[in-house]
């Protein structure tokens, strides 16, 4: 598996402590003075900016390696500390070591036998594949067992308890004697190597006394570059500032100590040095005030550079910035295929694909190069080239001036960075990238304009809309990447969601309405209308179907179901109930009066209406079946064609909706008002009976709770009844009802709230109760428990809410907003943690799921080894399909008898749950969109 030219590979990496000797050995210079630059602006020798530690100014040379700015990686220096100082990062380990070892002889306070047993256990653990964490926990246990002993088992010395005063001071509990770092170091020095192994420390690379610093490594200047301001002043890095502090105090401490100053003064300075060194490592150590800049801003020291979202790890090492990418606003284009993306010419001229020149393509490539970076022609678009990379690695920028010349000199083995052309494979992505469908491969279509465009069917997987959303595009640079993207990431490969094995890409909104118009009650089209619909399937080889002849007039006509059948595979068969199904107690099947029983045989739609259950995303049965049985490419073609057919149908029919659609006749409005008044009166009665104590208490509930339950029930009924009355008067010819019933957009609940009655507003699932003392608003009397006083809205959105109703509605709405805000942030964090726990798991060729070490996590993927996106709604085998194949139409009868017997089998149950979850999800993400657009990323 060794790649060409690679002779060495990294076997393992070990992190350990560095000894003071090693710090001095690797040091390029000793730092003794806190001054950085002299009067002429040159760095002072043995100062913090000593040129031995690397260079940051162009033109200068490093005094250690003699290299110039970008060549010299920088070299460490060191500061000799006058007195030893504890390293905060190791304070826990130091405490553990001090507690578990004897203060006199330094031995681990366990008997020989115990130590022997522990060592054997550790060996065994390693042998049985115990992770480092387990070993660490085990040695922690060892330390715990050893600590807290009164007497050392080896030298018999009485032990004094040690307490840690955060962050860095140790104190002997009995006489309150403070242990100086020097004493700590002496104790650590005494611990024998053998005992360290038992405590999980490898003495060959890490002696505990190294955790108490006697020398401080000074990072190279390249790590802490100073910036020259416009005014000519120099501004030093935070680390340099901190090191200056350390040096100053270190100097003073040394002078005072050497001059024999009083112990008190020396100790104070020592503590100050400890503070500076501590904050140099971590300026957010709890228990000490953070060191601040002159402006009052806390300094960003070593730990702050690494930690957190903006730290080195998360923002620089795991987060990468890339070239060959573009980002712009998205807009819809229903005429593109689902696997295409419209790229603006402007972006296409910047984005390039490397083309390796060989004997076969050299003439063609030469032509492209000769056109230069701006061929001038944008319509039709012709690709140019931006760079030529010669075989020796030199990169030549092509300009319109040198294009001809560069093209002349083109040779085999050069690489040309050619501009994007139609058909290139690119990755297309929208944040937040929550699932794998958030990044899919598309084929490029160069287009005029300034936005990325794609088919509306691809909105659901990206969760995109066009209210200002932006998306990213990445151009693949290698053949391997392109092949992989084409096989795994293309849109059609992701039609079936791995979440539940159903389609996630499918018709949306108007496409569903269009399919409904095309098929519902089988409308007739004359030649012109039929042609108008069918010609939209341009380019696809579909024969014009044979017309029917009207028996009376003798005219030719085509039916909607016939037109729809043209896009179905020839041998397609399926049976299901459409979304408009009324769930009658006895299903009349083919004779369904609502045309809701869909039956397709041999690629002909015999009866039924195509709506969201047929071709919609996440529910589309036909789509599901085609993607599974006929492959992803057939499914792609089907979706494209259905989209076009549906648009043809809806344009032929004409479709619009407005608030006028919620108009109901006055008598219906009166009926609704009367009914809700009845309900409100009933609530008043309930309240009265509660107040005079005649209300029958429900088991397990207080009297007040009983009242609330009853009231909620009555008012809930009021809204449902209003919705029912309104729905009765709206009828199936109403556009809003068509959308709701066919599953295109909106629900009957939305409609009944607009036409009938908004209903009870709730916060935390209860009627509104908070606000003022014993009442919700000052418009009501204290203690009023009636319907209006507790947030019932008897008006509809259309008739308009009263002022109090409006306020209550805002209360309920606010809760929803807060909930989604909390949910998104929480689920985002959970997602992050889940991903970091699962990211390195992979499915191996033997069917097991393993982590990077090779440890088995699951003996068989998902326990049944099935890929969820290739299951039938969670089941590995589709029995219905098998029956249908074997028994033909008899299977349908069998199928439905089974269903009615069991009354909702496992699959349908789970699917209902799924729909419910999905609705929840989509709400959540809608709000997320708002955040994204508003935040302006």
């Amino acid at each position, binding site marked *: 598996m060794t790649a060409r030219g690679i002779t060495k590979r990294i076997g393992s990496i070990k992190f350990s402590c560095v000894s003071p000797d090693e710090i001095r050995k690797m040091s390029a210079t000793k730092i003794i003075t806190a001054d950085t630059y002299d009067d002429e602006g040159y760095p002072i020798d043995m100062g913090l900016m000593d040129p031995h530690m690397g260079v940051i100014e162009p033109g200068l040379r490093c005094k250690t390696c003699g290299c110039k700015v970008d060549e010299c990686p920088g070299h460490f220096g060191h500061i000799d500390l006058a007195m030893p100082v504890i390293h905060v990062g190791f304070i826990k380990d130091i405490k553990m070591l001090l507690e578990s070892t004897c203060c006199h002889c330094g031995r681990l306070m366990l008997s020989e036998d115990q130590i022997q047993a522990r060592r054997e*256990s550790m060996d*065994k*653990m390693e*042998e*049985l*594949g*115990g992770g480092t964490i*387990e070993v660490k926990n*085990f040695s922690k246990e060892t330390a715990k067992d050893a600590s807290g002993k009164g007497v050392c088992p080896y030298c018999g010395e009485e032990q004094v308890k040690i307490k840690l005063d955060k962050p860095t001071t140790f104190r002997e509990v009995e006489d309150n004697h403070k242990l100086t770092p020097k004493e700590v170091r002496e104790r650590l020095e005494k611990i024998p190597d053998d005992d360290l192994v038992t405590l999980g420390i490898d003495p060959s690379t890490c002696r505990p006394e190294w955790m108490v610093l006697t020398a401080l490594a000074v990072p190279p200047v390249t790590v802490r570059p100073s910036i020259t301001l416009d005014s000519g002043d120099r501004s030093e890095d935070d680390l340099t500032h901190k090191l200056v502090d350390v040096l100053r105090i270190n100097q003073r401490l040394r002078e005072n100590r050497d001059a024999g100053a009083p112990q008190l003064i020396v100790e104070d300075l020592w503590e100050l040095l400890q503070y500076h060194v501590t904050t140099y490592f971590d300026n957010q150590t709890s228990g000490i005030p953070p060191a601040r800049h002159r402006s009052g801003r806390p300094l960003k020291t070593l730990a702050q550079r690494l930690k957190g979202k903006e730290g080195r790890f998360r923002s620089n090492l795991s987060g990468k910035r890339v070239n060959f990418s573009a980002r712009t606003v998205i807009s819809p284009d229903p005429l593109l295929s689902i696997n295409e993306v419209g790229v603006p010419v402007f972006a296409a001229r910047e984005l390039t694909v490397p083309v390796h020149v060989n004997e076969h393509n050299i003439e063609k490539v030469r032509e492209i190069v000769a056109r230069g970076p701006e061929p001038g022609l944008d319509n039709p678009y012709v690709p140019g080239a931006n760079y030529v990379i010669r075989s020796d690695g030199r990169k030549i920028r092509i300009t319109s001036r040198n294009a001809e010349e560069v093209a002349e000199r083109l040779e085999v083995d050069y690489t040309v960075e050619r501009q994007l052309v139609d058909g290139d494979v690119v990755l297309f992505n929208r944040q937040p990238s929550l699932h794998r469908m958030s990044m899919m491969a598309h084929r490029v279509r160069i287009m005029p304009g300034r936005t990325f465009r794609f088919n509306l069917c691809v909105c659901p997987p990206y969760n995109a809309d066009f209210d200002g959303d932006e998306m990213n595009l990445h151009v693949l640079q290698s053949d391997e990447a392109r092949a992989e993207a084409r096989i795994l990431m293309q849109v059609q490969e992701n039609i079936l969601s791995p979440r539940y094995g159903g389609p996630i890409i499918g018709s949306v909104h108007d496409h569903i309405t269009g399919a409904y118009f095309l098929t519902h009650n089988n409308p007739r089209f004359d030649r012109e209308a039929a042609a108008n619909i069918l010609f939209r399937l341009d380019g696809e080889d579909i024969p014009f179907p044979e017309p029917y002849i009207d028996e009376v007039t003798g005219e030719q006509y085509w039916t909607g179901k016939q037109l729809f059948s043209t896009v179905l595979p020839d041998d397609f068969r399926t049976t299901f109930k459409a979304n408009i199904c009324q769930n009658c107690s006895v299903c009349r099947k083919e004779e369904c009066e609502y045309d809701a029983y869909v039956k397709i045989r041999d690629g002909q739609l015999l009866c039924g209406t195509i709506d969201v259950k047929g071709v919609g995303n996440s529910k589309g049965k036909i789509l599901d079946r085609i993607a599974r049985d006929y492959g992803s490419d057939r499914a792609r073609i089907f979706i494209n064609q259905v989209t076009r057919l549906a648009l043809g149908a809806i344009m032929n029919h004409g479709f619009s909706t407005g608030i006028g659609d919620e108009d109901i006749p006055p008598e219906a409005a009166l009926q609704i008002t009367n009914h809700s008044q009845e309900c409100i009166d009933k609530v008043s009665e309930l309240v009265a009976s509660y107040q005079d104590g005649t209300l029958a208490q429900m088991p397990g509930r207080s009297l007040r709770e009983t009242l609330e339950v009853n009231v909620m029930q009555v008012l809930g009924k009021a809204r449902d009844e209003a919705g029912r009355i309104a729905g009765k008067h709206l009828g199936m010819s109403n556009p809003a009802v068509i959308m709701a019933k066919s599953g295109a957009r909106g629900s009957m609940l939305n409609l009944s709230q607009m036409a009938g009655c908004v209903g009870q507003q709730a916060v935390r699932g209860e009627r509104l109760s908070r606000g003022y003392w014993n009442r919700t608003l000052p418009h009501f009397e204290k203690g009023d428990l009636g319907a209006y006083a507790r947030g019932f809205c008897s008006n509809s959105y259309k008739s308009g809410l009263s002022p109090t109703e409006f306020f209550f509605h805002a209360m309920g709405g606010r809760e929803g907003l807060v909930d989604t805000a909390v949910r998104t942030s929480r689920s985002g964090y959970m997602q992050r943690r889940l991903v970091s726990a699962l990211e390195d798991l992979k499915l191996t060729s*033997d069917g*097991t799921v*393993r982590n990077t070490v*090779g*440890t*088995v*996590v699951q*003996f*068989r993927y*998902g*326990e*049944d*080894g*099935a890929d969820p996106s290739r299951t039938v709604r*969670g089941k*590995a085998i589709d029995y219905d399909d098998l029956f249908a194949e074997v028994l033909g139409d008899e299977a349908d009868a069998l199928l439905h008898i089974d269903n009615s017997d069991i009354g909702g089998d496992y699959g349908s149950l789970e699917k209902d749950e799924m729909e419910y979850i999905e609705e929840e999800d989509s709400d959540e993400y809608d709000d997320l969109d708002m955040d994204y657009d508003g935040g302006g990323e």
Partner: protein
Amino acid sequence: MAAENISFNVLKHDLVPEHHLLTEDEAVAMLNRKGMTRDQLPKIRKSDPGIKILETIHGPIDEGRVVKIVRKSETAQEFVAYRLVTRG
């Protein structure tokens, strides 16, 4: 030592899957069949209530023994997993 404190047999509980202690031969055969080494197996602690129950039947169970766990699975009716007994 474990047995005397056990007041309830967890293995009899409906939600606890079957645990079987494999003999050394069985364990080796299983590992060979699966092409795995002992250190690649998932772990189960010696202090696990399930292991304690098994100890009342088989006597003390050493670290390094393999336990076979047969659990009901929503996707595959029955699912067999193996775990390596470790310290703890």
